[in-house]
């Protein structure tokens, strides 16, 4: 017989523990290393992807395009057509990034030779990984796969990645908690606006980069690449989010969300009290603004592991800190941006003590999503997102806002009820 009177206090204790671990997270960007050196399971023909588990036959267009591109990039196929045939014959092993302490934006593909950013959570000792941001325009994370995309990936693998790794070792790593705190006061929300954090990072990294890259031409190219990419910090913020949330997993009876992610077909969440089980539902279409020449008819459903930043209280949860992004993603006025953050406070258990919002009298960003509050209030997480073209090989066509599907949270709540013997 279940003692239902004891459940609420037990959940309260479990959630306070989860929130404590989350808020104490102390992420430091320490290195950039080849994926195969960080993830031993990442062998030839193994591809990690964004979102919950999915196989080739259910993958969306841009995900398939990126798979074909990365297979050619890794030398597993001579061209995109051959790569597609191989994929359809089951020649590749697909697994979620999340199963290997990793995350990836949009299609989020991670393969053995790609360099990965390494973020260490100094409070808990765990590490998390993410690929280096490729820049804007036609890129693999949005399904781009032509020669220019693959050449850029090769340059990141052979030049930029090793240089970044050496520079980070040279400077002893870059603490991210204070950097993000400063970025929030400068108008970033760390999902669709990373202008401030990318600039702050470059300012810290440039001297070390200059000391480890001997060739001035190479150094100039690297600084120009990072300096011209407003979203360079996004991938770092994602690895940071993963390093903060992984230690929150597996706290018995906790109702705190530890991961939200999407693969362009399904949206999936995990909650602390139910370990590594995924709760999925069909992913929704973003509502947003489109680049000239594109419209909603071109858009792919929502995609990417980048929702890890919302999971820790940034992105859409910190919309009030970034009024400029509200216009960019079509979310409306400054007042509406503040309203989105206010609604996220209704479904979260606490506020970050250092990541504060100036326009809200230095109130902390809302963090620690509780599935009970989501289901009770009917308020689902709001996510800022890029929008990929639904066809392979084209790339980004816009940016917008999307809602997490309520069904994920309802399924998780029912499953927790079953685990606790009260369903």
């Amino acid at each position, binding site marked *: 017989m279940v003692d239902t009177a004891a459940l609420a206090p037990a959940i309260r204790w479990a959630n306070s523990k989860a929130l404590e671990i989350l808020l104490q997270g102390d992420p430091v960007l320490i290195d950039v290393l080849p994926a195969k050196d960080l993830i031993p399971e990442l062998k030839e023909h193994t591809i990690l992807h964004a979102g919950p588990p999915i196989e080739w036959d259910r993958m969306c267009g841009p995900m398939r395009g990126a798979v074909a591109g990365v297979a050619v990039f890794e030398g597993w196929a001579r061209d995109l057509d051959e790569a597609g045939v191989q994929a359809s014959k089951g020649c590749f092993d697909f697994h979620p990034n999340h199963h290997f302490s990793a995350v990836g934006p949009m299609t989020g593909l991670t393969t053995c030779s790609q360099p990965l950013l390494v973020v260490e959570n100094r409070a808990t000792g765990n590490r998390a990984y993410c690929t280096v941001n490729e820049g804007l325009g036609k890129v693999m994370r949005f399904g781009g796969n032509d020669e220019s995309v693959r050449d850029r990936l090769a340059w990141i693998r052979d030049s930029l990645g090793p240089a970044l790794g050496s520079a980070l070792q040279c400077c002893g790593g870059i603490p991210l908690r204070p950097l993000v705190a400063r970025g929030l006061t400068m108008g970033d929300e760390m999902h669709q606006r990373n202008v401030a954090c990318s600039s702050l990072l470059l300012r810290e990294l440039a001297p070390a980069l200059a000391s480890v890259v001997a060739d001035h031409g190479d150094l100039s190219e690297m600084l120009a690449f990072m300096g011209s990419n407003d979203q360079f910090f996004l991938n770092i913020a994602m690895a940071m989010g993963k390093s903060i949330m992984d230690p929150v997993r597996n706290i018995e009876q906790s*109702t705190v969300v530890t991961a939200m992610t999407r693969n362009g077909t399904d949206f999936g969440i995990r909650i602390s009290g139910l370990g590594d089980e995924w709760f999925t539902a069909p992913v929704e279409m973003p509502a947003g603004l489109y680049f000239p020449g594109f419209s909603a008819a071109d858009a792919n459903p929502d995609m990417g592991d980048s929702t890890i930043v919302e999971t820790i209280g940034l992105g859409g949860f910190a919309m009030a800190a970034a009024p400029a992004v509200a216009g960019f993603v079509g979310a409306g006025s400054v007042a509406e941006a503040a309203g989105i953050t206010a609604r996220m406070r209704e479904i979260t258990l606490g506020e970050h003590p250092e990541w504060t919002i100036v326009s809200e009298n230095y109130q902390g960003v809302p963090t620690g999503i509780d599935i009970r509050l989501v*289901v009770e*209030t009917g308020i689902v997480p709001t996510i800022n997102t890029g929008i990929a073209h639904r066809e392979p090989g084209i790339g980004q066509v816009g940016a917008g806002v999307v809602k997490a599907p309520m069904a994920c949270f309802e399924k998780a709540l029912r499953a927790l009820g079953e685990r606790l013997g009260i369903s």
Partner: protein
Amino acid sequence: MRLMRSTVVSNQNDSPAIGRVCAELLQSRPRVINLGLAVFATDLDAQDVDVVHVDWRPPAGGDEDLARLLSMLAD
């Protein structure tokens, strides 16, 4: 907005007092708290009526099973 659940207790001895309150309500300018659908508040506001809107909806969207589950798991 999250609301605390409350209980209303009626008492027949209060009938004269309730009558006075009702009379006052009918004779004075209305002041309205609107729960749920915002359109009612919008219409009242357009008629220059004092109105406060509360963004409320039934717990779990009215799903009885989920609401029962929530009641056992909630603080």
